């Protein structure tokens, strides 16, 4: 229980921490193309972990009645789309690694992840009126956007 409260109260800092660490890990190896696959794989995992964090934060916000059930449903539906897109991207990275998929194909698959992140922000987070709820969920979408940036940088698609 204590851990749950601590997690909820620190969700903004955690999401920001993820953002900075993702940025730092990418900046450590500029121009290094040999680990493109690993960077993409790590970003895919970071996105899946961020989705899990978004679910936990949404549950807390709903429990506090800072968002409505209708808003929670919209967020869930978009998170499901994002989760499916991330799973497909992870499979794409695997295929890319095995030489069964080219970089252009992987970039095309990743466009689905990017679109879902934008939907989460535009159709989900920005529609929330409570400022605390909006701030907490915005921090997660910011982290997701950074993870997307890491993938784009690794693949040279930005």
């Amino acid at each position, binding site marked *: 229980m204590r851990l749950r409260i601590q997690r909820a109260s*620190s969700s903004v800092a955690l999401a920001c921490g993820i953002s900075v660490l993702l940025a730092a890990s990418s900046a450590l190896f500029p121009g290094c193309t040999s680990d493109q696959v690993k960077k993409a794989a790590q970003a895919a995992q970071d996105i899946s972990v961020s989705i899990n964090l978004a679910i936990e934060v949404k549950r807390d916000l709903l429990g506090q009645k800072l968002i409505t059930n209708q808003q929670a449903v919209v967020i869930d539906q978009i998170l499901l789309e994002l989760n499916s897109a991330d799973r497909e991207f992870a499979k794409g990275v695997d295929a890319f690694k095995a030489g069964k998929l080219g970089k252009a194909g992987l970039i095309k698959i990743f466009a689905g992840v990017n679109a879902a992140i934008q939907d989460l922000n535009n159709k989900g987070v920005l529609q929330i009126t409570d400022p605390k709820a909006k701030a907490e969920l915005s921090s997660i979408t910011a982290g997701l956007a950074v993870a997307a940036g890491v993938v784009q940088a690794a693949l040279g698609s930005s």
Partner: protein
Amino acid sequence: MAPAAGGTDYVALITALAPLVTAGAPIVAQMVNQIQGQSGKAADTILAETGVQCDANDAKLIADLAAEQKAIEGGAK
């Protein structure tokens, strides 16, 4: 925090978020450990773990959706 023309604007991002990261230092430290742990993992392992996490996310989201829609229907009665 839109990506710059040449990629993500990491400097602006870090500058903007630094105070919040300081506030959450213990949790950030855990994330550092996690990422450092990941650095030693093979891509195959990371991708397999991602698949497991995605499956867990799906299960949680489907359960949440059912509960939330039930609450909406209950409230409409």
